[in-house]
């Protein structure tokens, strides 16, 4: 168990800059999720911790000790690979026992640990099989097992449950979180699935194109995203982003678009005038679940639009509304609107405190 620190770390492959000046402190015992779209440099970061990629620039330290030059085997780290990387010629048992045998552990101790871990992952029946006789999901669980049998300084997971079916994935999220909390081992978990990040991590680090966007608790990431990109990346369906212009009206500020005008709450007005937006251009963010829908126009539903499509999802539905050239998603309870035909007029309302404002040029969020 140990804290893990990235200090101005860069990773370059010939022309590609995969990780750009990464600074990140992962606390002892923390479950940190590296989240980002495909190709943003998550695996590269993880592999630098494991010692499988050279660090182009900067420093990574583990437990206060610089590990840049340390061979992988001396780093005392366990890792689950994206492609399982099971040893094809070994049985599941031997796959899991391999790291323990290297550590000169007694036979009984190895046997106990392998069987314990196998029980947690429900792969006891598979211990005698070879990887070629396993399904993808089983392979993945064996790979996780090979990682969990050890007591390393840190666990590294590279999309460990991406290949499981939805049901098993939901269960494994719970299992992995439980195991991590029980063992208290520092964990870096790479995924592009925000649900995994939100549900398991103590903190999430969001990356985009090799640049760290924000590090915060899942709650904070969701409620106070650092910029418009993070805001739209987290949340399903994604946050609506509307383009508008900030203007003064009646002594306060309003955000004006051709189709609607949104009053800017006082607490954000000060920050917005201080933020010195370029040409007053602003982006307004509203989460689909923060919007109300009505089929009759009134003061509480000031934004008018027309239905583009309706997607029912069990007890809720997602209404896709066209407003001018823009489209707005509204998540609402089933039956809120009676007539769901295309092009039927609908009206949207919002709570002012649920609005987000972003600098339209830099994308930075503007908070009070």
């Amino acid at each position, binding site marked *: 168990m140990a804290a893990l620190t990235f200090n101005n770390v860069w990773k370059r492959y010939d022309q590609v800059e995969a990780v750009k000046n990464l600074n990140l402190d992962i606390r002892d015992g923390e479950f940190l999720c590296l989240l980002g779209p495909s190709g943003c440099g998550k695996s590269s970061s993880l592999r630098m911790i494991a010692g499988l990629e050279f660090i182009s620039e900067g420093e990574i330290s583990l437990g206060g000790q610089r590990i840049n030059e340390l061979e992988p085997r001396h780093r005392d780290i366990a890792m689950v690979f994206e492609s399982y990387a099971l040893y*094809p010629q070994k049985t599941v048992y031997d796959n899991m026992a391999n790291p323990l045998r290297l550590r000169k552990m007694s036979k009984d101790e190895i046997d106990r640990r392998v069987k314990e871990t196998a029980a947690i992952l429900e792969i006891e029946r598979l211990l005698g099989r070879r990887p070629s006789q396993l399904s993808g999901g089983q392979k993945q669980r064996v790979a996780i097992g090979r990682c969990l049998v050890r007591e390393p300084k840190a666990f590294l997971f590279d999309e460990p449950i991406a290949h499981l079916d939805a049901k098993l994935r939901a269960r494994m999220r719970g299992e992995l979180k439980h195991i991590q909390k029980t063992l208290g081992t520092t964990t870096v978990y790479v995924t592009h699935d925000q649900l995994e990040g939100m549900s398991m991590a103590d903190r999430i680090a969001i990356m985009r194109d090799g640049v760290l966007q924000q590090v915060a608790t899942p709650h904070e990431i969701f409620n106070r995203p650092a910029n418009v990109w993070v805001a739209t990346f987290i949340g399903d369906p994604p946050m609506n982003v509307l383009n508008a212009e900030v203007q003064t009206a009646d002594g306060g500020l309003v955000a004006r678009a051709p189709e609607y005008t949104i009053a800017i709450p006082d607490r954000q007005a000060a920050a917005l005038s201080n933020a010195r937006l370029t040409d007053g251009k602003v982006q307004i963010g509203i989460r689909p679940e923060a919007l109300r829908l009505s089929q009759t126009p009134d003061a509480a539903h000031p934004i008018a639009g027309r239905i583009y499509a309706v997607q029912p999802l069990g007890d809720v539905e997602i209404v896709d509304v066209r407003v001018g050239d823009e489209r707005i998603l509204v998540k609402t309870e089933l039956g809120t609107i009676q007539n769901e035909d295309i092009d039927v007029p609908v009206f949207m309302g919002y709570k002012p405190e649920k609005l987000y404002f972003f600098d339209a040029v830099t994308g930075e969020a503007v908070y009070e």
Partner: protein
Amino acid sequence: MTNPRTATEAGSTEIQDDRAAVKDDDLVPGPAVDARDQVVRGRGSRIVGIAISTFLTLYVIWTLAPFYIMITSSFKAKGDAFSLPAEGDWGGAAEKLIAFTPTTQHYTDLFAQGEFERYFMNSLIAALSSAIISVVFGTTAAYAISRGRFRGKKDLYFWIISTRMAPVVAVTVPLYAIFKNFQLLNTLPALILAYTVFNLPFAIWILKGFFDAVSYEIEEAYMVDGHSRWQALWKIIPLVAPGLAAVVVLCVLLAWNDFIFAAVMGGEAAKTLPVATQGLKSASGIEWGQIMAAGMVTVAPMLLLGIVIRKYMVQGLTMGAVKQ
């Protein structure tokens, strides 16, 4: 008492039942389709089947006839081997192929008169040494090329293969000059080096394909588990074993069957089987019996090697072929 008519009727209904069964199978997916497939093949492609069998039979005769002649001739007394049947006496000709009094005279002559055992050992040492060197260095080089990320990798790889493209004769003369300078002429090391010149690029080429087929993450997993890089390489050797088997066989074959290098650079001190066999053709005449016996001695070990390692080799050669 059975009425013959009923019997035929019963027979014909059976046939009809068969057809009905086949028709039913039509509707069932899976193995049943295979069954119908067989029925069709049995009826329709009989001619093709016969043609294939005929062709294969001819091919086997074509391939094995020289062996047969070599084997029988090596056991035939001199007179027997060259006695010709009367013209048009086909039966006699056939009989000559089969009926003779076997003698091991040629083999005893071969080993008693000359230094044939030494030549055999020379062949063996040259072939095995070159194969071992090629496998060891080929493995490490192929591993490096497969796993490494460095500038000019493709060019290096192509250059390695391209050395194999030069005709043997083109290399013989410069090698001769070099070996002369280093006073290696007429020694076994000269032959081993010469064979390695050809075997090593080949080994690298084949083995790189095999290493490419092994996911690098498997080694990475070993390293993270606590193995060194060398240990990780050692651990994945079983996964490229078919490639190693193929390389061993082909390297041994190249050296074992070589004539030109051994003839030019081997001299008496490093005379190998093919050169020695050629030496049996002297001014006093051609010792056909002994030549055939020598041929047997040359072929037998390779046959044995082939049988022992066959399973791996087929796997190895086909996999390598697909990979490239």
